[in-house]
Structure formats: C-alpha cells, structure tokens
C-alpha cells in the first residue's frame, strides 16, 4: 500500500470512514441467520479422503476413527513428507494467526522463521495477534476488507462476527476448484484430513476454510490421582460417587476442596445432549431436557455443600489449573489437551503430581453412559480471494506442507524448529533449548490443521493412559442429529447462550433458587431458542434427520 496520500485522497478516506461507520451501525442491527448445507451437496464440495501413510512409521497404539494413534516412544527417524519447496513464486506470503503462547521475536530477528522459510522456498510474514482479543482485530479487518493472503479464524470467533458468511464469501477464495473430490490428490496432506472436518470448512455453500481438525472429545473429568491414593479413595464411577468424594476430600482447614467446575461433565453423566436431540420427531435443546434439569439440581448440591473451591464459587471464570496443581482442588473438568500441559507445568516442582482422566461415568451406578461428540473442526485457515489460480495453488501447497502429521520432518520443524538449535533430543525425549523457547511460536502451525496423535511420550505413562481413555470414551459417543451436515449457528442463538449460562451459574451459587430454572428455559425459548429450533428443524427435515 502506498504511503503517499494526497489531500484529495485524505478527504476520500474521511468519506470512506463515514460510510464504513454507517455500515457498521447497520451491521449491528442484523446478525447472521445461520446457514446449512446438506450432506450430499457437501460431498461434491470437499476432498475425497485419501489417508496418508508415513513410510516406515507405525504407531505403538493403533488409531481408529475416534482414537488417535499413540506413540509410546519418540520415533528415532522422522520422515520427509514433502520433497519439493511449496513457495516458488518469490512473492512474500502475508498471514494472520492468533497467539496463545510466548511472543516471538519478529522476522529478521528470529532464526526459527528463517529456518522454516528457507525450507518453504519463500518468506511468510506473520501478523500475530493475541488469541483472546483476536476477534477485535478480525472484526476490523473483515469490515475494512483489508485481509492478508492467509488468515486463521477460530470457529468460536466466527459465531460472534456479524455477517461472517457474507464477508467470507466476499473476501476469501473458493477452494473447491482446487480440492473437491480427487482434485485434492495434488495436496495429499490436505486430502489426509477427516472428511467431517472438511465439511466444517464450508461457509454459505462454498468450501473456504482449511479446517483445524478437532479431537472427538470436548471434555474430560480430571482427578489428582496422587491425592486420591493418599486418602485411600477411588475414582468416581458415577455421579453418585461424587457426593461421597465431595465429603471425603473437602477439608477447608487443609485448604483442600473436592471440586472445581464439573458442571458440563455432570450434564453429560445425566445424559443431557451436548446441544440438540431428536425426541419423538421434535428437536429439543439441552436446556429443555429433564436430564439437564436434574444435573442443575445435582451441581447446585455440590456448591451448597461447600465442596467447590471458593475461588470457583466466587468467580466462574477463576483459574482452576493452579489450585488443581497445588492440590487445593482435586476434581475438575477441562479439555483433554490440558492433561499433558498440566504435566509439563507441575511435574518439575512436584514429581508426585499424578493427573488422570476419569473414564466416562453415568449419573447412577449401572446407568447409561454417553460421551458428547466434539465438532469436527474448531478453527479455519482462509485464503484471500482474487489472488489468481497459480498463487492460490501455491498457498494451498503451503497449507499442505504445514499439514504434515506427527512423525514427519515437516511436523518437527513447524512445532519444534531445528534439532540441535531450537530443541534437543535426549533419551528419546525432546526438550526445547533456550533459543527454541524464545523463538518457536505456533505460527506455521495455524496455516492448516492435521490429524491428531498422542505423542507426548516424555511423560511416563501418559500416552497409554490417554489412549485408554479415548478408547473407553469412543464406546459411548453420542451423535447429535446434525452429524455430517454443515450448520452455521444463527447469531441470535449464539447471543442468547451466554445470558442463560450466566443465570445457570447464579443458580449453582445460590443466587437464584433451583426452581427458577424452568422460567429461565422459558426465557431462553422466547428470546430466540424457539426461533433457533425452527431453523434447526428445517435443516433436519431437509436432510431426512427428522
């Protein structure tokens, strides 16, 4: 962009600003109504899946549709998955990605960037931005139309952005001409993705997002096994066991409480659906089910009994990882990915720290066990529209290179940098060097996604334990009525979720009586829930799911 601005140009900018301000006002009035694309149409838009087998590499624990392959030991040799350099035009690639980690030095001061760019055959210039405030920047860039060549956008941001689909269709390239069906053979690592994840890359009937493939499980109940063992207690096998553990574990004098937030895991144990469920030909949202109402009563009892850590009682968003690490709370729910992160954080100071995921449990002993199924993709990489056929292919080639799975040299370079410089391998365990900690940031990682693997073999017993937990969980996965259909959540429904959750949290904490729950559900229905049901019912009927 030219840095020279004439007086006339300046006045033009002022005019454009006023117009944009007016447009901004209009945008707030009307949010996305949601869209859906049927399964048969999706098939024609996305790549045919062609599994990518890494030559000479087989996992110690086999993967399956809902269980990631496990590597109990680190492979001695990593395999080169892409033999050519993907960037050939000599043009710099601009990319915007979120950051939830260490702020790395910029291009020119960062040997990690130099090493990866050298391997890519060109320069990628990152515009990285704080992941927690990413949506602020996204909104501005999308509204102004000033987008880089590649842009990573998390799904949880997408549902909060007004008219995202229209903006995406206007600003980002249609990828179907390059990837649909067997065309994806040109990009074998992209064709290696789960098809359901690709379905989620469809916005407004157009394949636009390269998906970040999610693991199938959104949550797990974690316990401090070392504390349970010390007290001679067993992991809960039902929600009822939680009541016993609450009493046995809680000891405020010793600054120990049984629970952090466990509400969603209790909802699951009580067989509430993750979102929608087909009940006798009618769609019912989780809030409307008896199972959910029972879970509300149960969780409120945990709070009432004083078994929940006071920080969590005082603040629903309180950090629970630190008190879990210090042993102040013994049981809480978190994403499965938090497991190895906690091991990395707390094991150095406390070698006895033993965190375990509890196998999925029912509300009552012998009851039905269900496990919620995660959305197949959580984040997406978009390519700017209008760059031309050759450039779009080049950028897809870059995404393909970045998609290399665990076990490949590309994966190692993207995740860890250069061996001997950014990380060292000792006794089969990789550890970052001081330079690696400073320079290696998840940047190239966000230019695509990749199939999952349980690879954190540096923590003794972790890989096997996670694989066992996934295997046990996979037996109980419950599909919702929209599996295989790409449904974009209507903004109005996304908007009413938080106020309802806030009221729910007030019930848990005794600020509202449990008896108010029915009224809260009614408010949810009136304020957009029923409207959302109509939208989802129409989608379900059109796809033969109702």
């Amino acid at each position: 962009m030219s840095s020279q601005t004439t007086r006339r140009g300046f006045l033009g900018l002022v005019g454009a600003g006023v117009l944009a301000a007016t447009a901004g006002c209009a945008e707030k009035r009307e949010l996305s109504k949601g869209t859906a694309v049927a399964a048969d149409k999706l098939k024609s838009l996305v790549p045919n899946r062609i599994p990518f087998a890494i030559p000479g590499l087989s996992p110690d624990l086999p993967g399956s549709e809902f269980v990631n392959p496990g590597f109990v030991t680190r492979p001695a040799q990593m395999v080169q998955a892409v033999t050519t350099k993907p960037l050939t035009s000599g043009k710099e690639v601009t990319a915007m990605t979120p950051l939830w980690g260490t702020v790395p030095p910029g291009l020119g001061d960062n040997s990690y960037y130099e090493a990866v760019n050298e391997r890519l055959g060109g320069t990628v210039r990152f515009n990285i931005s704080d992941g927690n405030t990413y949506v602020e920047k996204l909104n501005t860039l999308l509204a102004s139309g000033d987008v880089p060549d590649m842009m990573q956008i998390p799904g949880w941001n997408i549902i909060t952005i007004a008219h995202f689909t229209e903006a995406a269709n206007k600003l980002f390239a249609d990828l179907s001409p390059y990837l649909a069906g067997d065309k994806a053979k040109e990009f074998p690592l992209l064709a290696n993705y789960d098809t359901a994840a690709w379905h989620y890359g469809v916005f407004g009937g157009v394949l636009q997002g390269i998906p970040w493939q999610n693991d199938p499980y959104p949550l797990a109940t974690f316990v401090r096994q070392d504390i349970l063992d010390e007290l001679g207690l067993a992991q809960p096998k039902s929600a009822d066991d939680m009541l016993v553990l609450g009493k046995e574990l809680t000891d405020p004098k010793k600054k120990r409480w049984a629970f952090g937030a466990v509400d969603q895991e209790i909802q699951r144990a009580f067989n509430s659906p993750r979102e929608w469920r087909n009940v006798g030909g009618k769609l019912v949202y989780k809030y409307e089910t008896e199972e959910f109402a029972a879970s509300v009563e149960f969780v409120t009892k945990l709070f009432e009994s004083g078994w929940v850590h006071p920080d969590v009682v005082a603040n629903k968003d309180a950090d629970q990882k630190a008190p879990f690490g210090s042993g102040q709370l013994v049981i809480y729910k978190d994403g499965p990915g938090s497991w190895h992160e906690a091991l990395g954080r707390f094991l150095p100071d406390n070698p006895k720290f033993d965190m375990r995921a509890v196998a999925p449990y029912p509300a009552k002993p012998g009851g039905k066990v269900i496990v919620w199924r995660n959305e197949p993709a959580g984040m997406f990489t978009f390519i700017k529209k209008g760059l031309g056929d050759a450039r779009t292919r080049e950028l897809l080639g870059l995404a393909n290179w970045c998609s290399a799975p665990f076990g490949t040299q590309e994966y190692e370079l993207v995740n860890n940098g250069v061996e001997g410089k950014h990380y060292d391998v000792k006794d089969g365990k990789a550890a970052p060097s001081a330079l690696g900690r400073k320079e290696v940031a998840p940047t190239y990682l966000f230019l695509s996604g990749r199939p999952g693997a349980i690879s954190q073999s540096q923590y003794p017993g972790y890989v096997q334990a996670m694989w066992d937990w996934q295997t046990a969980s996979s037996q109980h996965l419950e599909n919702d009525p929209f599996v295989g259909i790409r449904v974009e959540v209507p903004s109005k429904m996304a908007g009413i979720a938080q106020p309802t959750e806030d009221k729910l949290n007030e019930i848990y904490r005794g600020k509202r009586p449990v008896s108010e729950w029915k009224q809260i559900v009614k408010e949810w229905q009136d304020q957009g829930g029923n409207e959302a049901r109509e939208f989802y019912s129409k989608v379900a009927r059109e796809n033969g799911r109702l």
Partner: protein
Amino acid sequence: MTLLGTGRARKPAGLAAWEEAPSPAGRVGKGTLLTLIVLAVLFPLYTIVLTSLSSAATVNRVGGLVLVPEGIHFDAYIQIFSDSVVSRAVMVSTIVTIGGTVISLAVSVLGAYSLSRPGSFGHRPLLFSVLLMFVFFPGIIPVYLMVSGLGLKDSYWSLILPTAVSAFNVVVLRAFFMNIPGEIMDSARIDGAGEFRILWRIVLPMSKAVTAVVGLFYAVGYWNAWFNAMLYIDDTRKWPLALILRQYVVDSNPLPTATLGVSGMGHDAPPTLAIKMAIVVIAVVPALIIYPFVQRHFTKGVIVGAIKG
C-alpha cells in the same frame, strides 16, 4: 445540630462543627478508619510485591497470592529482563510515551490557546468540532481505514497520531487559559509580543499545573494503551509493553525464559504467579514514580480547568 445533653463541651462561637477539636473517641475512630482504608490500598500492593519476590515452588505450593514471605527471590525479575522481547517492549513504550506526550501536549496547548481567545480564526466552528468529539467517536473501522490509508500501519506513528489529541484535555487546558487575565496579555501585546511569545512566555509559565496534569493524563494513556497496538502493529518487534503484558498477565502465556524442566515440546508452562506479579509491578512503577511530582498540581490543574469555562 444541637449538642445539648450530650455531655460534650459547647462549641466555641464562630466555629463550624468540623472545626472543633475532635474528642479522643473521635480521634481513635478516625484513626482506625483511615488505617483500614490505607490497609485496603496497601494490602493488594503488599501481596503483589511479595508474590513477585517468591519462588515458583512457593507460589505453586500456596496455589495463589503469597501472604507470608518465605525468602526473597529475584528470579521473576531476572527472567523478565533477560527476555529481549520484554526489554524491547519497554523501550518501545518509553519512546512512544515520551514522544507521544510531547506531541500531544504541543498540539493540545496550541489548540486550547487558540480556542481560548474569542475572535480567533474559525473559533466557533473549531470549538464546536472539539466539543463534538465528546459525544461522537468516529468508530474503529473508519479510524482503521484512515490509518491504513495513510500508510501508518505497522509504524510507531499509528500508536501516537490516532490518540494524539483528547478533546477532554483540550477543553481543560482551554478553561485554564481563559482564566488568565486578558490584561496581562494585552500589556504583552503593547510591548510588541506576538501570540507565540505570549503563549510561551506568559500563558505556559502561568499554567504549569494544568500542563503537568494533562501531560500526566497523556503519558499514562500512552503507557497503558494496547488497543491501537493490537490493531495496527503486525511486527512483534514493535509491540509496546502493554500488549506484551496482556499476553503474560491476562492470558497467562509463558515467558520464553521460563524454566521448564521436563516440560514438553511446544507446550510451555504458563508463567508462575510470581512472574505475573513482577510484570504488574514493572507496569505500575512508572506511574508511581511520576505521580508524586505531579500530585501537588493535580487539584489545582483539574478542578480549576474543569469549573471555569
């Protein structure tokens, strides 16, 4: 209010109730109340400083802010300042704060002085447009388009120019300038002084209080600003301290210099609370240092500027 029947001495004639010498009980009550207020202010500061000076092991064991000292450790500060990203950000923030404050003060003083002289060129429409800024903000997207269109993106100017002038500060300065007797300026004009000389030699020396306070407002604003940096600065080498602090303190991201033991690849441990609190200390120190020097001007500068006009 009558004091009859209370057993207290009748107040001397001519003294208001609050001018009497307080009773011993009143003194104790006031002392206790003031002590509690001071403790309420100092206690958080105490825990923050103490936690920043505690070892990671202590913080992990306690599981929160440290209340009882267990040795003094400067590890957190050493880690922070051994990270070139943080050191660089401190430099960027210092330059932007100093440069921005000078520019903002210069523009605001010039603008306020011209607006304080009725009859100056375009006085009424200019004053109206400044007052309009109180109630109408152009919006993020128009400003973004403007900054982007002017080619300021990814430059330090984008951290200064969009917020260089605050309508509030201009109005405060203007009100203060209007309070200076016109006769003084008239006599200067008779002696042959031009407007710039009057501003420089007469108005500003008589307005040190308000200038210092407005300067403090601008400086603190630049030091704490992160939104513009988040929006306009792509290159991490140009990130100011506030943006870096947010990553570490609010988002609990790890410092690159953090000691990780057997921690895994690409999954750094978040900073311990000690480092977070040390960063908080570093962020508030400049304001703590500057404030005592400006405090004596504060009441006069703001109140006089605010009530005249």
